[in-house]
């Protein structure tokens, strides 16, 4: 034909990557919104028990955590091996629980304070004596909504086999 197309050189044109930062930023913002910072660094070992009838704790702002378990290896020289309570970032005694709950409650708005949930994250080997003491302190502090933090087992049958 009359029109003669000039063949360009056959090398593939470079892929346009100018939108790549946009995509990555989008991902970044997603993660910033959807995740939360790690709350505390655990000083006790918490190997959560397993249960099937569990409910999600919806609003993180309403939840206050109490950890219980044996101190980690590096704290064992100082604090021994018997299970201890951890509040925020430090070891605590049972007497500290009440002031802790009151302080947490004060930081929340009035309607949120009524909905406050205490999440007990305890190791499954902890004896019930300690847990009962914690529960008594919570009752005295009028923090009555509690949640026994547990994991959904991958194999439900395994729940019954361990005996």
């Amino acid at each position: 034909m009359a029109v003669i197309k000039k063949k360009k050189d056959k090398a593939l044109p470079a892929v346009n990557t100018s939108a790549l930062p946009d995509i990555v930023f989008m991902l970044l913002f997603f993660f910033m919104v959807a995740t939360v910072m790690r709350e505390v660094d655990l000083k006790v070992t918490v190997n959560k028990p397993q249960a099937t009838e569990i409910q999600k704790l919806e609003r993180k702002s309403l939840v206050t955590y109490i950890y219980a378990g044996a101190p980690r290896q590096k704290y064992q020289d100082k604090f021994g091996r018997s299970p201890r309570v951890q509040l925020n970032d430090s070891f605590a005694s049972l007497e500290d629980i009440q002031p802790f709950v009151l302080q947490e409650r004060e930081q929340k708005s009035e309607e949120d304070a009524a909905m406050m949930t205490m999440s007990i994250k305890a190791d499954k080997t902890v004896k019930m004596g300690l847990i009962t003491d914690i529960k008594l302190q919570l009752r005295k502090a009028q923090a009555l909504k509690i949640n026994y933090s547990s994991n959904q087992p991958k194999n439900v049958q395994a729940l019954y086999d361990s005996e």
Partner: protein
Amino acid sequence: MARNKRAIPEINAGSMADIAFLLLIFYLVTTTMDTDKGINRKLPPYDEELVEDPPPIKERNIFTVLVNSNDQLLVEDEYLTIAELRTKAMEFIDNNGDGSCEYCQGFKVGTSSDNPDKAVVSLQNDRGTSYGMYVKVQNELVAAYEDLRERYAQEKFGRSYRSMNEDEDKEILKEIKLAYPQKISEAEPLNIGG
């Protein structure tokens, strides 16, 4: 001059993606997405003096679950394993001894509960019981109620109780919970096997 005529060169944005990736990875590492899950319970309010006269409950309406410091179960004076607890509890709640519960399918045994409304599960553990065992027992007792509610929902509404929405099916959920009210009472723990 020739130099001034040149346009300002474009800023090289090629490394922008690298910077964004770096930030992204930082967030991936320092944050968590796992939602907390667990068994919700409500504690009884603390009272200085003990209630003098607890309301009398007939012996047949109480389902006693004892857990000792070796994590062994004693249910209604009978040694049980954790796998049997759920069925046993369901039989007790669903027994319908006085025949007033129309939706129950129990065996109407004379020594078991009158109706689901009167049935109380009483749990007592030792101070030496492990927390893992305690959660397991709680889980089974809650599961017994949940299974009964599920059955009721399927028969009455033809829908799954567990998939119902808190906001949309408020009335239905209320009715189901009223049909099988969850009554689990916890006694002060013993201190035998300390």
